[in-house]
């Protein structure tokens, strides 16, 4: 009960920030408060959002993945380079390659018993390097016009990426809440040793969470490649930190065992709104980092304080 109540408050805190940002931006820019703006906002956060959903699953299990930006870049490069085999084949190849990086991460962490931070730091560098080798350091340009439709077209006035975002979040929300895959995620993140004693195949599931995280990053790679019709090894350089920040802002614990995908979505949305605010207020983008960091710290500190106070009150009552 306690945990649930605290989580509810955390959720509402983010909603307050989101509403506050919406109010500020609507007053500051008369062109802002339109359906068009909200739609484009979700369009803009789709790529990071999809990746952050996968990262949330992995973070809940107590692991970590720094290689997602490289996965996104490599996926895009392979899609563009294999477009001669047709659109579907190229997308499948790209996603398979990206997902395979997650499998490698998973094997190294589980079988090699190496810290996830170190493994994914290594694969992050290796696969960015592979991207540079594959492209000979030149960004590669896509040749299939139809592929661009995937993330540039709209349906009923709503850009397609918004639909993907909704589908991904609905799916991850369901999986985390109502499947063994999701329950084991929280159990392993909460306490891997007792999970193992309880008969959960910790290694297998940890491996799968890495695979899923990379799979989502690969999907983000598909969206990005379709959006810019280009594959490049420099794409997604700063993405891992950004999406981990979004997940943490959304209440996911870096130590595992705790997190919601709806919180992550709110985190991504807040970061997206801050980005938009920088344009509307015409302030130097450097302040974006200050604002972003301040909000993250503020939310986490108040989170910690309210949880502690509640626990204190409960202890006093008991």
């Amino acid at each position: 009960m306690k945990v649930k109540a605290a989580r509810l408050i955390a959720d509402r805190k983010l909603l307050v920030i989101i509403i506050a940002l919406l109010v500020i931006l609507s007053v500051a820019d008369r062109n802002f408060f339109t359906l068009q703006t909200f739609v484009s906002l979700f369009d803009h956060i789709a790529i990071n959002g999809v990746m952050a959903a996968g990262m949330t699953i992995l973070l809940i299990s107590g692991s970590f993945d720094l290689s997602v930006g490289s996965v996104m870049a490599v996926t895009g490069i392979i899609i563009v380079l294999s477009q001669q085999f047709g659109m579907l084949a190229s997308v499948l190849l790209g996603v398979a390659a990206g997902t395979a990086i997650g499998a490698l991460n998973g094997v190294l962490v589980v079988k090699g018993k190496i810290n996830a931070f170190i493994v994914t730091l290594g694969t992050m560098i290796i696969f960015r390097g592979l991207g540079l080798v594959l492209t000979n350091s030149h960004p590669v340009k896509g040749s299939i016009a139809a592929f661009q439709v995937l993330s540039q077209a709209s349906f009923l006035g709503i850009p397609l990426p918004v639909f993907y975002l909704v589908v991904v979040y609905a799916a991850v929300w369901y999986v985390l809440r109502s499947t063994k895959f999701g329950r084991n995620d929280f159990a392993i993140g909460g306490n891997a040793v007792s999970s193992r004693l309880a008969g959960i195949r910790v290694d297998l599931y940890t491996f799968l969470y890495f695979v899923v995280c990379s799979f989502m990053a690969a999907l983000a790679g598909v969206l990005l490649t379709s959006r810019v019709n280009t594959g490049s090894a420099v794409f997604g350089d700063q993405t891992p930190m950004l999406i981990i920040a979004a997940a943490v802002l959304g209440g996911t614990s870096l130590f595992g065992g705790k997190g919601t995908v709806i919180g992550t979505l709110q985190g991504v949305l807040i970061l997206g709104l801050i980005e938009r605010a920088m344009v509307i207020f015409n302030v130097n983008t450097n302040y974006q980092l200050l604002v972003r960091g301040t909000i993250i710290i503020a939310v986490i500190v108040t989170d910690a304080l309210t949880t502690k106070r509640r626990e204190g009150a409960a202890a006093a009552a008991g």
Partner: protein
Amino acid sequence: MKAGKILIIVCLALAVIAVTAGAQKKVTIGFSMPFVEDSPYFFPYTQAVKKEAAARGWDLIMTDAKSDLNTQVNQIEDLVAKGVQGLLIVPLDAAGIVPVINKMYAQTKGKLPMITSNVMTDPPQLKSLVAFAGPNSYLEGKAMGDYWVHYFQKKGLTKVNYCEMAGKAGYSAAIDRRKGFQDRVRELGWTDKFVLFESQPGDWNADTAQKIMENWLTTYGDKIQFVYCHNDGMALGVVKALQDAGKNPGDILTNGCDGQVEAVELVQQGWMLFTVFQSPATDAKTATDTLARILKGQKVDYYTYMETPVIDKANADKYLPIVTEIWGTK
């Protein structure tokens, strides 16, 4: 929820300030930058664009994508959503920026004038763009290749070993400066005479370039006859490595591109053979002039190239005060 209430009050106050501040009507111009920090070029460039915009009475909204293409695409869409009347774009990626330019063209039904500056799109000529204004990295590469070939030709050499200190992998200036160099060397029939030992990305960074140069000195030593550098910043690192290794000016020569103060001084001292002067101020002026003429309804050429003169020992004294003025002191 007390904290929430306070937040809302603060927000409303900020909003009121924002509204009163932005009340006056001006021409609003969007200015989309790929990155600014860590770039000795883009800092004076953005300063010059701001100055030019202020002189013209424009309300300039600048965005900085911090080297992330997806962010730049978002920012361009946001600028258009904000209702800018002109858009000046420095693409992070030549090909990757094209879809959003086309999308914005369609969205504004071709009514929003958009130009690119400094970095050309790929393909360079787009129906959705009005103009490109800025330097031509390919021609700079050609000028550098030309200078090196003629230098060694005059010396009567027939075989020259060199290393290439390339710009950040994937960046168009690096790609074009390499291609321009190679093409010019081929045109002059020197492809077989120039032996490339190694090409490494020095990431436009002096420290990175210095480390690479130290490795090259260990591997190839004095067999290297020159180092083809894609910009001045890396040339400074190369020279530092040579100085640390106890070399004398002219033992192993290098070149630069940009025309920074330190580089011009190294040209005077004989460490560098030449540099190509790409003035960020001229670049900014070329871009804003072009956009201003478009806004006035004048017809402009699709390509407006800025001048990029070569600075060598013969004219370094003349250029030193000019470059000092433009780059300023750090």
